[in-house]
């Protein structure tokens, strides 16, 4: 009994530590950018390649369209404050990085204020698929929050830990391993 009791106490400490870390920090999401000029930090013109949920060492990619990738990238990198649809649309428009990905003349996606609500629903759906794959019993609305303000605005906030990965543009001679991955 003493040995099994010790084992039990260790296991309880472990799962409670895991749980409290999850509750305190939120889930971890990885955002991958590619085509970064070598030596640069993070520049407009890079492609937002993927957004993934990281759970227990596994990566679960969110199945997102180009417009949703831009919105997810913006929300994840500005997750400190809840924002209204107007603030999100304005923030994306004014951000050089995101605006570079949204030039209508080049048939790139646009994110108008009026479509944010629908896009958030789609992000919830993508999160729901990823949670199911990761066997997480979490409601997407507990991660990507939709909160009523004291007036009639709705605020959105993606509570998460964000890991930003950059894949540099390789040399002109493109081979299988020409890209260099950097975590920043």
């Amino acid at each position, binding site marked *: *009994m003493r040995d099994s009791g010790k084992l039990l106490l260790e296991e309880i400490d472990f799962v409670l530590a895991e749980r409290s870390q999850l509750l305190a920090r939120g889930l971890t999401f990885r955002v991958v950018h590619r085509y970064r000029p070598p030596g640069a930090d993070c520049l407009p013109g890079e492609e937002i390649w993927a957004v993934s949920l990281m759970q227990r060492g596994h990566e679960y990619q969110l199945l997102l369209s180009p417009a949703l990738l831009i919105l997810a990238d913006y929300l994840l990198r500005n997750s400190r404050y809840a924002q209204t649809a107007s603030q999100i649309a304005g923030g994306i428009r004014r951000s050089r990085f995101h605006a570079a990905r949204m030039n209508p003349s080049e048939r790139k996606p646009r994110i108008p204020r009026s479509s944010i609500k629908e896009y958030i629903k789609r992000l919830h759906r993508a999160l729901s698929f990823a949670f199911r794959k990761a066997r997480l019993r*979490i409601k997407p609305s507990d991660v990507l929050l939709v909160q009523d303000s004291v007036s009639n605005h709705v605020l959105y906030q993606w509570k998460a830990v964000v890991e930003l990965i950059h894949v540099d543009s390789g040399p002109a001679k493109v081979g299988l391993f020409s890209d260099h991955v950097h975590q920043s």
Partner: protein
Amino acid sequence: MTRILLFDPDVAHAEALAMLLRGSGREVICCSDQRMLARRLRERTFDAVILYSYRSGDWKLHLAEIWSFGKALLAQPAVICFARGYRGPQERVEAEQRGVRLVYEG
């Protein structure tokens, strides 16, 4: 204080474990049948649920019950399943996939 729900059909074993856990500063509530488990889960929230499993896979029967209470992330208790005797990796894989920690005892 950490609140734990201990499900163990062996009442004497449950009491001995509960004493040990209380000694380390945890609040422990024991139950020995499915109906009692559901009632306890309805009454209050727990940080962790410990399931003692005496037969292969019997812990799966209780999982739906546990997760039907409190769907929110904050209300989800962590679930640890203690199984008597090694039952191979398959059961452990299934437990991991369901988000349960399965530990073989002895």
